[in-house]
């Protein structure tokens, strides 16, 4: 056996490895780039899914912008308030995190509710379909239903329902807003997660035109606006617009709407109940929008359970404080 060859190989290869290792060691010291430590900390605090909801190219970009003082600290939607607070600690600033939001579909005109104007046979992509005469759906404001949002959602929170409308899983949705940006019909919106009630129609058409194309479309009758207990609704171009800061989720609009265009996320609502302290002043009868309270003056009033929707309007007006909302406790926590 040629031992010199073995020796040469070992020394040659080992020496080469050693030299290269040393060169790299020196290089890593000499060529080190100084990085702001806060940038690394900020990057580590972010979720790292690069969804782009903050408006920067990925988590790296956002971390750099935060440290440079160019970006607000509460922009990370998937991370939510915990990440904003953490970024605040890193940057030594106080943060008041925004209310967490979730995406909702504001169209309910699926295959059974809204017809098709023509058969679309092109690429199965909402954006392309929407370019062709506004898409195949009878209502040009409605969801195209080809599932572009399903594809873009970085969290797999959206699935295509059987009715041809996407269903958003509120537990998985982080409110990053990717689908909202991508939807060619703008029928996805971000609303506060705590809100129970929202309108699910985007049509600005007049009543007749809406009825022709969709069974559940808003006809712009304005009943919800008239009945809203806090003036949170306003009719703009045949469509009620909700001011979520004012809305108290009483649910009156849900029950007044003739086309059932509102969605109530609460799984159940309480009922009003009048106890014997009632003096029979009829204040509650006057305020009830659903004729759910009956009774003679000076006698204890009664709630008609079938008509009561649990909006709670009667509770504060009762001078004797004789009205309680009972049942469906904690329904407000049903919000996503």
């Amino acid at each position, binding site marked *: 056996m040629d031992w010199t060859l073995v020796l040469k*190989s070992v020394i*040659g*290869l080992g020496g080469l*490895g050693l030299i*290269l290792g040393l060169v790299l060691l020196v290089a*890593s010291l000499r*060529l080190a*780039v100084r990085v702001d430590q806060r940038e690394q900390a900020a990057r580590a605090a972010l979720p790292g899914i690069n969804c782009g909801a903050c408006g920067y190219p990925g988590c790296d970009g956002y971390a750099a912008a935060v440290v440079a003082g160019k970006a607000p600290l509460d922009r990370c939607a998937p991370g939510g308030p915990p990440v904003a607070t953490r970024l605040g600690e890193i940057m030594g600033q106080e943060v008041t995190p925004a209310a967490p939001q979730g995406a909702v579909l504001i169209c309910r005109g699926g295959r059974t509710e809204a017809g098709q104007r023509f058969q679309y046979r092109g690429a*199965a*992509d909402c954006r392309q379909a929407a370019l062709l005469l506004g898409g195949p759906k009878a209502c040009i404001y409605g969801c195209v239903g080809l599932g572009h949002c399903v594809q873009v959602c970085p969290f797999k929170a959206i699935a295509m329902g059987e009715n041809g409308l996407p269903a958003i899983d509120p537990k998985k949705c982080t409110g990053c807003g990717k689908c909202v940006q991508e939807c060619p019909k703008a029928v996805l919106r971000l609303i506060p997660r705590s809100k129970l009630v929202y309108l699910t129609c985007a049509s600005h058409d007049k009543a007749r035109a809406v009825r022709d194309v969709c069974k559940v479309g808003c006809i712009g009758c304005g009943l919800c606006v008239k009945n809203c207990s806090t003036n949170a609704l306003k009719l703009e171009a045949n469509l009620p617009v909700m001011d979520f800061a004012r809305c108290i989720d009483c649910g009156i609009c849900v029950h007044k709407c003739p086309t059932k265009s509102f969605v109530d996320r609460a799984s159940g609502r309480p009922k009003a109940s009048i106890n014997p302290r009632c003096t029979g002043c009829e204040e509650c009868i006057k305020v009830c929008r659903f004729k759910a309270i009956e009774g003679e003056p000076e006698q204890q009033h009664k709630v008609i359970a079938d008509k009561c929707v649990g909006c709670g309007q009667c509770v504060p007006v009762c001078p004797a404080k004789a009205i309680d909302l009972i049942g469906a406790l904690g329904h407000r926590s049903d919000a996503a």
Partner: protein
Amino acid sequence: MNPARIFIGAFLVNNILLMRFIGLCPFFGVSTSVNTSVGMSAAVLFVMLLAAWVSWLLYHLLLVPLGLVFLRTAVFILVIAALVQFVEMFLKKHARALYSALGIYLPLITTNCAILGVTFLNIDHKFSLLQATVFALGTAAGFALAIVLFAAIRERLDDAPITPALKGYPVAFIGASLVSLAFLGFSALFGIN
């Protein structure tokens, strides 16, 4: 051998991805969009040239005189990996724009078989340093051509109505074999084997 023949041979006739079937990982991995495949091609060009030079010099000036040619696989892997690490650090410090353009792709291509394949072919074909350079350029250009063409096809496949069973990689493999068949047409040209 004529440099033009070497270039065309490496570029079309014996295209590294479609005829030699070397370096298929990036061919499928980063060919989802034209943008990333262009970035990858640039990184391949860069690393392939450097690797060809360094491995050629090392082989002829060190391994041959020492009689250690049988160690070339280990030596080339070692040297190319270290070289790319070094270049990455150098670019990060002194050429920030180039680093941010190539940055993520450089470490990806370091130990790719396409790179190693070119360094071996240079030696097997007994190329001179100039010929090795031309061969590396041609191979990198062929890599870029194949991967950018294929990425454009895959971008269109994304929007095409495809049976669910074939969606994603299955249809990409079928597409790749068809592209490869098309390149088979060049094999009647002159070339290097």
